């Protein structure tokens, strides 16, 4: 029987009301009195020496307030990188300066060169056209393997090469891994590309800077997943504004998927320009600008090998990956191909020896950083494609090979430095086989063949690591931030309460799900609980939302704060009830004395806290407000098994997704409806990557896919209904809710299943193709079928 409230209930989302009626408050909906607009003149050349920027003609254009160039920012700090990687030789990564506006050189198409602030956006755009930019074009480096060759043009003249770092993990294991390959009975090798993507939240980025000359206070309204992080990075490292004079507000945010984690130049510019112009300055990205300035995702080129013994047990795994950083290091870019990728290479398997090499490379392209899954989709794609290839080379069933090598005992310490606390990979695979109706596949294949189509079935497993933590460990790994989360619970006199959380909701439904947890803990109605987020002025320092961390880390902070509230409320109740504190029980919103019928309502206790006439003032302070910071002791490890069924038209190479099933283990579930929705969306993005999405550059560094006319994303007619299940639940052992996180799983788990299914369809048509790179476009499929 489904619950109608609290943990486990599919409570309808309260935030929907404003979104469905056009009353959301997104950053572009904010207009401040006297605001001016900025338009960025961006480089249309990928690599060149910036000789001069002549703004003289533009200065006198109608409506122009002020024009800025790189020269105005030479005293301003570099856009910072939040993670420093130490390479396999013990050297720290190469870290270039990242200017707010280009100075001396341009390094990718879309890099801002000048910024025109004007009375209207139209006037700013018109004036930008009158700016004379003189650039001496240099050869662009686009291909990563070319970029690291001796003598390649350097993206940054002051660095020794285009190699950011050469990371080996675990370096001490390398000799043993190589030895295992020498001793292997069978070795499977696969080379593949994880295609470059653009996250494309439907709301483009926006920044509105404001400055109050009378107080010296700065405010930035921005489309961010983590306003405190922006405040710290921009305030401390770029503009030199102390945090108490800088407020960052991220109101309703229209999707993020990682790309709104990072601190961008436009945020720093609007904050800086608001003071320089003494009026609010607003920037709204166009979609074309977004393609040229939002951090991109993925873009790995990998060779991966598996060694197996005579009984088909995995004995060793090794990988060589080139990871594109783009022209500059975006906020968390260095961590993605390393600690968020290498540590996941064990996947769901007990492979005893693993070695991962990653070469991170600078190129004349937009910076690359975390996109939904961030490193884990890349790890999963390689591994799950490789395991399928192993199975076909050995002539064994791909599911049976997976089952044979599954990790079955927990906790499990992998050879890549992480410890999985819980999981049941057999259970999720069993569930998948049930919900995907594998038994009915052959009949469906025959139906397809009767229509002249080929049908393929593909599976994969995944493991991911969510709620990145703990802070002291990530500090050792190079993070320049802590990764805790915070919550303040403020109970009002009449019993309602407000949770001020450092987590940020940009579609995940925190305003609904978080109250479900507290309602369950106290026994009050969810409507008595309000969630406040997204404003540094009224939330405690928090790290924000990414990496499926909100409930596991932010929710845990909220639980800890609520536990403190309950503990204090029990003290007050014991005074009111004239009973021992140890005898007080809280149930259904009332405090009672165990074994008696004496009780006092939640609201009476909260009122006593604020009107402390009958109150133990000598023992406890009035008021009922508590803050907790929660720093997890480990990652969480959601896992699952996915299956995809495709139909392939051999005449055209066109692939359609006919069925898609996902069996996930997210640990405990707070709101099943929201969890299903997160999985649906992740699957759609994963299918998008597998079938159509591709961020493409030509050899000169021109971005070929800079609009929705050129970058294909799934539409409703490209996708089926999905079958998703999260009834397999092995709760996380180290957070108070037992939750693991569900936001990224769909995007991690779906691409290999799609590609495995396409190859299966080809095989059924008599075409044994080892591999096909994403996106699996009709052109590529047709070429593979007819090549």
């Amino acid at each position, binding site marked *: 029987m489904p619950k109608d409230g609290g943990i486990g209930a599919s409570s*309808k*989302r309260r*935030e*929907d009301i*404003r*979104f*469905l*009626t*056009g*009353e*959301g408050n*997104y950053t*572009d*909906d904010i*207009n401040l009195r006297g605001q001016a607009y900025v338009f960025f003149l961006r480089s249309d050349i990928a690599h060149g020496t910036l000789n001069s920027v002549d703004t003289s003609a533009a200065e006198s254009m109608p409506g122009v307030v002020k024009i800025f160039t790189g020269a105005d920012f030479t005293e301003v700090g570099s856009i910072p990188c939040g993670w420093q990687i130490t390479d396999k030789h013990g050297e720290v990564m190469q870290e270039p300066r990242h200017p707010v506006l280009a100075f001396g050189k341009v390094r990718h198409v879309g890099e801002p060169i000048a910024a025109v602030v004007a009375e209207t956006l*139209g006037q700013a755009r018109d004036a930008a056209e009158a700016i004379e930019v003189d650039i001496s074009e240099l050869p662009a480096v686009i291909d990563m393997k070319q970029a690291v060759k001796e003598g390649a043009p350097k993206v940054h003249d002051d660095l020794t090469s285009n190699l950011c770092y050469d990371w080996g993990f675990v370096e001490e294991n390398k000799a043993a891994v190589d030895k295992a390959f020498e001793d292997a009975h069978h070795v499977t090798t696969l080379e593949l590309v994880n295609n470059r993507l653009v996250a*494309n*939240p*439907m*709301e*483009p980025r926006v920044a509105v800077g404001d400055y109050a000359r009378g107080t010296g206070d700065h405010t930035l309204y921005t489309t961010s997943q983590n306003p405190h992080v922006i405040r710290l990075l921009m305030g401390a490292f770029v503009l030199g504004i102390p945090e108490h004079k800088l407020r960052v507000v991220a109101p*309703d*945010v*229209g*999707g993020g*998927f990682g790309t709104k984690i990072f601190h961008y130049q436009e945020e720093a510019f609007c904050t800086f320009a608001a003071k320089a112009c003494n009026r609010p300055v607003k920037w709204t990205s*166009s*979609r*074309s600008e977004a393609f040229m300035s939002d951090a991109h995702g993925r873009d790995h080129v990998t060779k991966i090998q598996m060694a197996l013994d005579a009984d088909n047990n995995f004995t060793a795994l090794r990988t060589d990956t080139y990871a594109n950083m783009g022209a500059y290091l975006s906020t968390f870019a260095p961590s993605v191909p390393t600690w968020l990728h290498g540590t996941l290479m064990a996947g769901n398997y007990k492979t005893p020896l693993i070695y991962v090499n990653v070469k991170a490379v600078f190129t004349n392209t937009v910076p690359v950083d975390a996109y939904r899954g961030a490193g884990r989709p890349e790890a999963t794609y390689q591994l799950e494609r490789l395991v399928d290839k192993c199975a076909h080379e050995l002539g064994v069933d791909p599911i049976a090979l997976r089952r044979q090598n599954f990790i079955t005992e927990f906790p499990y310490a992998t050879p890549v430095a992480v410890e999985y606390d819980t999981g049941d990979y057999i259970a999720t695979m069993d569930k998948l086989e049930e*919900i995907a109706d594998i038994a009915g596949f052959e009949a469906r294949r025959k139906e397809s063949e009767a229509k002249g189509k080929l049908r393929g079935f593909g599976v994969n497993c995944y493991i991911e690591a969510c709620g990145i933590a703990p802070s002291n460990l990530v500090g050792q790994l190079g993070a320049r931030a802590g990764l805790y989360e915070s919550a303040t619970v403020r109970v009002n006199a009449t019993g309602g309460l407000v949770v001020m959380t450092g987590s940020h909701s*940009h*579609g*995940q*439904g925190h305003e609904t799900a978080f109250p479900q947890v507290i309602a369950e803990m106290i026994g009050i109605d969810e409507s008595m609980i309000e969630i406040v987020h997204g404003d540094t002025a009224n939330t405690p320092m928090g790290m924000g939302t990414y990496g499926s961390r909100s409930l596991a880390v932010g929710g845990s902070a909220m639980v800890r704060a609520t536990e403190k509230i309950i503990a204090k409320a029990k003290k007050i109740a014991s005074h009111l009830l004239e009973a021992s504190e140890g005898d007080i029980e809280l149930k259904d919103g009332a405090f009672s004395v165990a074994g008696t019928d004496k009780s006092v309502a939640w609201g009476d206790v909260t009122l006593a806290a604020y009107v402390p006439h009958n109150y133990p003032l000598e023992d406890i302070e009035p008021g009922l407000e508590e803050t907790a910071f929660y720093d997890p002791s480990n990652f969480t490890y959601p896992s699952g098994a996915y299956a995809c069924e495709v139909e392939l038209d051999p005449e055209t190479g066109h692939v359609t997704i006919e069925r898609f099933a996902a069996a996930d283990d997210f640990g405990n579930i707070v709101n*099943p*409806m*929201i969890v*299903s*929705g997160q999985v*649906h*969306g*992740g*699957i*759609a*993005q994963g299918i998008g990557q597998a079938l159509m999405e591709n961020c493409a550059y030509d050899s000169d560094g021109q971005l070929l896919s800079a*609009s*929705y*006319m050129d970058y294909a*994303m*799934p*539409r*409703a*007619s490209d*996708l089926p*209904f*999905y*079958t*998703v*299940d999260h009834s397999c639940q092995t709760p996380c052992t180290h957070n108070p809710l037992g939750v693991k996180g569900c936001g990224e799983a*769909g995007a991690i788990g779906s691409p290999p299943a799609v590609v495995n299914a396409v190859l299966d369809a080809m095989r059924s048509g008599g075409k044994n193709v080892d591999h096909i790179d994403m996106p699996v476009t009709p052109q590529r499929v047709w070429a593979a079928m007819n090549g």
Partner: protein
Amino acid sequence: MTQVKMTVNGKAASGDVEGRTLLASFLRENLGLTGTHIGCDTSQCGACLVHVNGEAIKACTMLAVEAEGADVKTIESMANADGSLNVLQQAFQDHHGLQCGFCTPGMIMSASALLKDNPKPTEAEVRHYLDGNICRCTGYHNIVKAIMAASGQDVSALAAE
């Protein structure tokens, strides 16, 4: 600048615009109707979809001056008179047909136009009709369900959650 006059959500509206001002910008900037969203610059995403003289129109494909004298309806007019959600909006909430909410106004305006023309659309018809509306959050699953549910169809058997 040119003055334009039209009826928006049942009320007379007017404003001074440049020739290049799009209807989407006029609604947002001049009238403060920020429920109409702008998600792209190539008329692909559908976040700005409104009704003009009863037709579903992407408000970025029309100049404000072209809407002179027109009857325009935006998301702000869709709720019931008492402010409660209409049947379609309620179905979106019931079936979790939205996440970040940014594409949602366009989805609602598009779906309501569909249901006016085709009161009981099939799944394939819904998916085909939504080709001009991109959602990046939901994978469309719950949007399609919500629209079919709003048309009075039983969606419980359509797909497992």
